[in-house]
């Protein structure tokens, strides 16, 4: 390896992986910049995909969108490899590490022993970096961990070849070209346009601002007489928004940080005011989480329509926000 690898602690696994990987290849880039340039902020409510009986709610683009988005924009020549046999997948990882490569992996969270037990669920699209190995241990930089960790070969293999939804199939990836100094304004403008398109004009009503409204409607209809399942349903929304590593407020704070940084890098000041507004929206998402948690704990009476009203207000706020972001994007000369 040309230079020693430096670990950094991030909010979200995929943006953290790409931030560290780019820095390692000579292009310092913050997590927020990696997240925003890949147009990773979004909203999706997918009632047909159920995990433990609960619908999928996501505040971001699907897994690998950040890796692929930055690969395209920065010309990293990322290689992606999947494996049918675990033995072949582990052998290939060893060969790349021995050649000094920094390797990204997609894994399950459940089978990683260094994760806190109460956070180990069957989520198969976790990302981490492997920067070396010692005997039977892999040296891992997991962006959501404070410090580098170690993982035994057997456990890592199980995590890489977990089955089920979004099965990683041993996916590994690495960059084959050093990134060139990017044209920040050009990349920023196109990234903003893409995010606006997803949030306001997605072809499906499940995605973007309309997805928030659809979620509001289904929250409103949650039955009071089946309190336990209603509580699990709204608890699931809050977990997807806060618990799983979003930087708070369902990635809204992280995206606001990107807007600030893009403003500073390009001198386009209009984005600063938009960042402030988005922080306000993130705060209201946090208030929604708090209101939901109080109902779950029984501090407030369980009232799904109250939560639905908050979601509708958030949808309206986000609609205005992304419309104004669109305006700022078009006015950017």
């Amino acid at each position, binding site marked *: 390896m040309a230079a020693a690898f430096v670990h950094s602690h991030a909010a979200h696994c995929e943006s953290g992986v790409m931030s560290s990987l780019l820095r390692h290849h000579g292009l310092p880039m913050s997590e927020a910049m990696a997240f925003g340039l890949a147009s990773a902020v979004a909203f999706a409510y997918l009632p047909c995909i159920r995990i433990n009986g609960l619908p999928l709610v996501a505040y971001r683009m699907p897994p690998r969108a950040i890796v692929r988005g930055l690969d395209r924009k920065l010309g990293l020549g990322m290689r992606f490899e999947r494996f049918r046999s675990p033995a072949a997948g582990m052998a290939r990882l060893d060969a790349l590490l021995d050649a000094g490569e920094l390797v990204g992996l997609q894994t399950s969270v459940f089978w990683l022993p260094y994760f806190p037990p109460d956070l180990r669920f069957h989520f198969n699209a976790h990302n981490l970096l492997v920067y070396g190995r010692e005997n039977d241990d892999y040296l891992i930089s997991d962006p959501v961990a404070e410090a580098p960790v170690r993982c035994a070969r057997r456990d890592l293999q199980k995590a890489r070849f977990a089955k089920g939804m979004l099965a990683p199939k041993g996916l590994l990836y690495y960059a084959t070209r050093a990134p060139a100094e990017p044209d920040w304004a050009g990349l920023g403008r196109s990234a903003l346009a893409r995010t606006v398109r997803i949030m306001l004009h997605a072809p499906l009503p499940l995605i973007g601002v309309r997805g928030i409204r659809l979620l509001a409607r289904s929250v409103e209809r949650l039955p009071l007489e089946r309190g336990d399942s209603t509580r699990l349903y709204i608890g699931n929304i809050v977990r997807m928004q806060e618990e799983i590593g979003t930087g708070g407020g369902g990635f809204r704070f992280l995206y606001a940080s990107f807007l600030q940084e893009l403003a500073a890098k390009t001198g386009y000041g209009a984005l600063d005011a938009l960042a402030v507004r988005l922080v306000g929206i993130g705060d209201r998402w946090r208030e929604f989480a*708090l209101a939901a*948690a109080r109902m779950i704990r029984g501090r407030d009476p369980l009232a799904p329509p109250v939560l639905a009203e908050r979601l509708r207000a958030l949808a309206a706020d986000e609609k205005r926000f992304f419309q104004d972001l669109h305006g700022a994007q078009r006015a950017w000369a």
Partner: protein
Amino acid sequence: MRERDVPQEANASLAGQRKVVYAVADDGRLRPTPTSGWAAEEVCNRLAVEDLQRRAEDARARALAGTASPLEYHMYRARMDPALLAQATGLWRWRVRRHLRPGAFARLSASLRERYAEALGISVEALARLG
């Protein structure tokens, strides 16, 4: 969220680890800020964890009473449900459901037991026990 308002509420779920949120510092810039947790998210996570624990305990009680197979208990202990266990083993869902019954479980072949044990990350011996 301002930096000084970032909750530091020591979530038990985080087991002493910290995670990063983005908060506004005094100079108005957003910065990554470590947090030991927030009670609101802890409540929701506990709810999910305890739901799975309760299902496992229910299944255990039924297995002891002879109305369910140990497989159901191990499935919930591994935080799975029949759909996920079917995907993890590559079996049809109806077959997994059938094996949740004590009679069908008792007649399982050695190779199917092996498959379940592998998917659940336990030994074949442990699969038949209610640990």
